[in-house]
């Protein structure tokens, strides 16, 4: 379910991959597990 924060709807659809804003570590969503792929 999507979250709404201060009027901005943030989609909850899993992305293909992302980089963590705090650590810079990047992940691939394999569907059942996240795999570290790269940094920054």
């Amino acid at each position, binding site marked *: 379910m999507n979250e709404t*924060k201060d009027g901005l*709807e*943030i*989609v909850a659809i899993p992305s293909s991959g992302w*980089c*963590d804003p705090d650590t810079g570590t*990047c992940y691939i969503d394999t569907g059942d597990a996240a795999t570290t792929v790269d*940094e*920054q």
Partner: protein
Amino acid sequence: MVEQVAKPEGARVVIEVWSDLGCPWCYVGKHRLQTAIAQRPDADRFEIIMRSFELDPGAPQEPEKNEKSFIRAHGGTAAHVLRAERQMQAIARKEGLEFSLDRLNANTFDLHRVVQYANDQGRGFEFFSHVQDGFFAGTLSPYAPDTLAGVAETVGLDGQRVREILASNEYANRVRADRTEGLGLGAAGVPFVVLDRRVAAPGAQKVPVYGQLLEQVAGPVPSERVS
């Protein structure tokens, strides 16, 4: 999704993208977003504005091999980094994108300062996109002032002005403010794409998802409208 009213037909839609240079998903996600936009006959309604998000503010100024920067920041082994890089390369290539394994990483703060200048001139996306594509293709070293000045001139900016910015501390506060704002908006993943300040997507989404979000804020593509 929360039901929202789409903008009037033809109205401009601003898409803000929080991104960093070394972030491979920012690269893949950018191309997917562009593809989704290009699939609409009203593609010229959409304006992408780059927002700065440094993922590794402590990265050294001196470029270092991708493998070394990864291990410095996160630990692990060279074999682990290579496996991950090949995985990402396969994803990128499957989507028709170049992905060099020989990239050099360094601090991106200065690049972001130039992006801020480029944004002021209405060329932020073009500038960053050009640098990003060259960086991942392995054809451009983004840490040399002359390189950035050259790219700037390619997209219609003043290369000398870029050199002046790089020699100063201009736009530093805006780079930091962008990161703070992104986090405040809920950036749980980078890239962080915010459409019309109404809907946001953390991470690199697939093309159909971006298409769905475009439709949510801009309405269905004109050819699909039912009279």
